[in-house]
């Protein structure tokens, strides 16, 4: 399951998608909306995606994991739209026979998701300002005003 959704992510979707009687280890990752970024209070977040490409790239990540670890049970879901503090923006589940591989593969999936899956985040600060951000820096912070 590789999906962009506007609905609340519970985790059950990805967990059920990877469940298998021969996989003893399930590693799940949830990204949730924090109440601050580097100490600056956040009001809420808005996510935007390019859904068909995002889902295709998620599938490619799963193929990479299949090649690297022989793990075939990977699911990813990312929510778009307005998300409040504490809500889940992204969930990744990996089921594997052994836990070490599962942890590695789940972490790899998240790293790759950040790199290649076209999803963008707009941070709306508590003080009312807003900006499109990328993981480690504010992107286009000083965007020239359009006239």
């Amino acid at each position, binding site marked *: 399951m590789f999906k962009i959704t506007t609905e609340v992510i519970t985790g059950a979707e990805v967990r059920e998608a990877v469940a298998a009687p021969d996989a003893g280890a399930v590693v799940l990752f949830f*990204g949730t909306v924090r109440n601050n970024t580097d100490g600056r209070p956040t009001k809420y977040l808005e996510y935007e995606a*390019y859904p*068909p*490409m995002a889902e295709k790239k998620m599938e490619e990540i799963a193929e990479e994991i299949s090649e690297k670890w022989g793990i075939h049970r990977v699911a990813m879901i990312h929510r778009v739209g307005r998300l409040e503090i504490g809500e889940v*923006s992204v969930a990744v589940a990996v089921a594997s026979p052994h836990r070490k591989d599962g942890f590695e593969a789940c972490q790899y999936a998240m790293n790759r998701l950040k790199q290649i899956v*076209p999803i963008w*985040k707009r941070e709306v600060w508590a003080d009312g300002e807003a900006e499109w951000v*990328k993981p480690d820096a504010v992107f286009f912070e000083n965007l020239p005003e*359009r006239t």
Partner: protein
Amino acid sequence: MKVTVKYFAVCHEMLDRSEEEMQLPEGATVQTILKRLEEEWPEIAEFYEVMQMSVNWEYATENTELTEGDEVALIPPVTGGNNV
């Protein structure tokens, strides 16, 4: 030929539209589109080096050739999940 061009996030805001159809000459590449956007809004060129492009849901380069019906997108740096 006619292609669809999509703009996301900051590109969407800059250009004030999320999608448009473009009529391009035969032999056009992704660069043909970038140049046309730059004519409309010169500041966008500053961001080309940190931006990626896609053609039909696959990352592409400026030199990727286009054909009738292609879906092209401007992809600002991506972020998945939260800053975690």
